[in-house]
C-alpha cells in the first residue's frame, strides 16, 4: 500500500519528474515518424512533448492510413 504521509512535496515532485521523463521518451515516437516523412524532428518532438495525445493520434492515423493505402495497392 502506498504511504505518503506528510511527504506530498516528495510525492508530487517524484511523480512529476517521472511523468515528464516518460513523456520525453515517448515523444520520440511521433517525432521519429515525422522525421521519416521529412518533417522537422525537433519541432515535432516539442509539439509531442506538450500535446502528446494529439501528436500520437495524428501519427497513428497517418500510419494506419498509409498501411491501408499500401494494402489496397
Amino acid at each position, binding site marked *: *500500500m*502506498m*504511504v*505518503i*504521509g*506528510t*511527504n506530498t*512535496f*516528495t*510525492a508530487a*515532485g*517524484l*511523480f512529476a*519528474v*517521472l511523468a515528464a*521523463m*516518460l513523456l*520525453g*521518451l515517448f515523444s*520520440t*515516437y511521433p517525432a*521519429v515518424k515525422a*522525421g*521519416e516523412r521529412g518533417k522537422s*524532428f525537433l519541432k515535432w518532438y516539442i509539439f509531442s512533448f506538450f500535446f502528446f495525445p494529439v501528436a500520437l493520434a495524428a501519427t497513428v492515423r497517418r500510419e494506419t492510413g498509409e498501411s491501408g493505402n499500401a494494402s489496397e495497392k
Partner: protein
Amino acid sequence: MKKQPVSADARRGMSTGAQRLLRSSMMDAEALLGEYGNTCAGYDEETVLARRGQYGRNETSVEKPEPFYKKLSEAFINPFTVVLFILAAILFLTDVAFAAPGEKDPSTVIIIAVMVLISGTLRFVQEARSDSAAAKLRNMVHTSATVSRAATGKTDIPISDIVPGDIVYLAAGDMVPADVRVLACKDLFIGQSSITGESAPVEKTAAPLAKTESAPLECSNLAFMGSNVVSGSAVCIAVATGGGTSFGAVAKSLAGKRAATSFDKGVDAVSRVLIRFMLCMVPVVFLINGFTDGDWLEAFMFAVSVAVGLTPEMLPMIVTTNLAKGAAAMAKKKTIVKRLDAMQNFGAMDVLCTDKTGTITKDKVVLERYLDVEGNEDERVLRHAFLNSYFQTGLKNLMDVAVINHAKSEPYLSMKEQYTKVDEIPFDFGRRRMSVVVRDSGGKTQLITKGAVEEMLAISSYAEYKGRIVRLTGEVRSEVYETARRLSGEGLRVLAVAQRTNPPVEGVFSVRDESDMVLIGYLAFLDPPKETAASAIKALRSYGVDVKVLTGDGGAVTKNVCGKVGLSVGRVLLGSEIDRMDDAALTSAVEETSVFAKLTPPQKARIVRVLRQNGHVTGFMGDGINDAPAMRTADVAVSVDTAVDIAKESADIILLEKDLMVLEQGVVEGRRVFGNIIKYIKMTASSNFGNMFSVLAASVFLPFLPMRPIQLLLLNMIYDASCIAIPWDNMDYDYLKTPRKWDASSISSFMAWLGPTSSVFDIVTYIVMFFFICPAAAGGAYGAAGTDRNLFISLFNTGWFVESLWSQTLVIHMIRTPKVPFIESHASPPLLFSTSAAIAAGTLVPFTAFGRIIGMSPLPAEYFPWLAVILLCYMMLATFVKKMYRKKYVELL
C-alpha cells in the same frame, strides 16, 4: 643525375659526418685502416666495446622504448586518476587528518585508492604485456651483417653491433649496414633509391678519389646505410654508424611528433565531455543538498561521491586493454602492432593508400613473353636471351634472374654444356645493353646482345622478319616501335634481343663489335602482383575500405598491375598533374581517382593529407624511404618486414608475412576493438547522464541522501569490475562490415536518449522504496511518529543501490547490440560471467556484515518482485528507445 654546384658556404656548413666521409673517399685502404686502428683481421672485443661506448649502437631509431618509470607514471597519471587523487587527498584531510578523534573514517579514501590502484595496475600490466609481445615479434625480423672480428674471424652480427672502423663484407642482396668506404670490390652495384630516389643501381669502385666531390652521395667509393647491394661483392670499412649516417639524418628529420589521429582526438573529446559533466554536476548537487538539508559536510561528501561516480576512471584501462587485446590477436597472425592505438585506426580506416612495388607486387620480375619481331611467341628468342643472361658475369639484374628462372628445363639446361663463353661486353647505364660471345660445339661463334629497344635498334642493321633476314627499313622499325609500345601499354617492361653470327674478331671484343646486328625479337617482363593482393583488395572493399595506389612508377605499368588486382583504373593521375592542382582541385580529384603514378614522396604525403582533410581515416602501406613522409601523415601506417628500416620506423603496423589477407583481418579486429571501446564509452556516458537526473531529482525532492557516499563508491567499483570483461565481448557481424570512426556527436545523442531511460527507473525505485517498501518495513511514512527513521533511510539506500547495480549492469547487455539481447545476440562468456558475478555480489552485500558496516539493511522479500517488474519494464522501455534511436541515427554504437 646532374650535379648541383656546391657553394663554399655550403661546404663550410657541411656536417662533420659528411666531411669524414669525403675525407675517407680520398684515402687509400692502408691509410684508412691506420686511421681507424684496424686490420683486415678486425677489432678485438675490447676495442669494439670501447668504440661502441664512444659512438653508441648502430641504430637510427629515434623512437627509443620508454623507460619503466615513464610507463608506470603514464599508467597512473591521466585526467581521470588525477581527479581521483585530488578527491582522495581532500577526503583524507576531512575524514582522517582533521576529523575529530573517534570520527576518523578512512574507508572512502581507501576505496578511491583501491580504484586508482586497480585501474593503473591493469593498464600498466596490459601495456607491458603488449610491449613484450611486440618486442618478441620484432626480434623475428632478421637484420644482420657480416664483419671481421679478431676472435671469431668473418662472422654474422646484428647490424646494431657494428662500430666505426669495422671491416664489413657485402654481397648481392645485402642491406648496407652503415656508411662505408669500399676497400675492394668486384662488379659492385648499389641500389640507392631509398636514399636518393634514383631507381637505377649505381656502380661503386674501390679506388681512392683524386679530388673532393661536392657531397658524399657523389662519391663512387662510398656506400650508404639503407641502400642495398644489387650485384657484386665488396669489402668495406664502416666510416659512420647510427645517427651519424646519411640515413640516420633522414630518420631524424622524420622523427617529429605525429599528427593527432582520429583516435587521439576522439578519446580527448569524450574525456572532455565527461569531465565537463562532472564539473557542472558536482557544484549543483553540493549546493542543492547543502541548502535543502543544511548539512554542508554531508552535502560535500555526497557531491564528492557523485564526482567519483561520474568519473569514468576505467576508461583508460578499458581502452588500453581493448587495444592490447587486438594487438595480441594480430600478433598471432604474425603482424606487429607497434602503436597500440593503431588498432582502432585500422578499424576506422576507410581509405588505404598503398605503394605498388613490394607491397601489392612481389618486387620480383618475371619473364611474361618472348616474341619475334612480328610479335609472335618464339622459343629461339628465349634461347638467345638465356645464353646472354646465363653467361654474363657483371650486373645480374632482376631481368637476367627472370630469364634464367624461366628457362629451368630442357633444352636450356643442356645449353650450359653445349656452349662455352668466349667473352662479354658488360652492361652499363650509358649503353643500356650488354653482350656475350658464345661458341657452340660445332665451332660457330655468336655475339648475343640484349637491351633497351631504342639502343638495340641503334646497333641493328637487319631483322628476322617474316622468316627472312631483311634490312631494317623504316617500315620494319615502325613495326618494332609499335609492338614495343603495345607491350608497354600492357604494363610490360620490354627488352630487345639481337645476335650476330661469327663476329670478325675473337678474344678482344668491345662495344664497337655491337654493330650490324640482326634483331630477333623481344622479351617482355612483369613485376606481378602478390597472389593475395586481388583477394585482399576485394575483401577490403567488401568491408568498406577503398584502396588507392600511390606509386613513383610509370602510368602504363601501374595501370596494368592495378587492373590485375581488381582496382578500377578509370583515370591515372600523374605527379606532374597533381603539382598543377591547388588543394581545392586535388580535394575532388583524390575522391575520383584510385591510381596515382609518377609521384614524389611529398606528393604522396600531400594526397594522404588531402584525403584526411576530406574526412577519411586514411592508411598508408609502403616499404621504401620514399613512403616514409606519407606514412607519417597517415592515420595508420602499415609496412612489411622486408621494408627499409625507416619505413618500419614510420609504421604503426608491420606485416611479418607477405599474405595481404591479414589486412582484412586487421580491419575486422580493429573494428571489434573500436566496438568494445565505444560500447563502454556510450554505456558509461549514458549511465552517468541518467544518474545526473536521478541525483538531481533526489537532491531536490528527497529529504535525505538517496545513497551514502561510501555506498555510491562501492557501487561504482562493482560496476567497473564488471566492465573489465568488455574487451573480450563479441561484436555483431553487421557492426564489423563498415568502417567505424570516432564521432563525438553520436556519443552526445546516445546519452541524451538512453540516459533518461535508466533514470526513469531510478525515479520509479525512489517512489517504490519511499512510499511502499520502506514505510512497510520501518513502521510508517517518513517523518511520521513511530517510524524508524534510520531503518527507513538505510533500506531506501540499499534498495536504490541494488536496483541501480542491476540496471547499470543490464544496460551493458541492452546497449552492446541493436538486436534483442540474450535472444538475437549473445554476450561473450567472460562478459556474462563478470556481469552475473557483479549482480550477485551487489545483491548479497546488504545481507552481510560488510553491508551493515557501510550502512545497508537486508532487503525484505517483497522488494524483489518490485525489482523484477522494474527491470522488465526497463528492458522494454530500453528496447523501444533503442528502436527509435536507430530509426533516427541508423547506428546504435
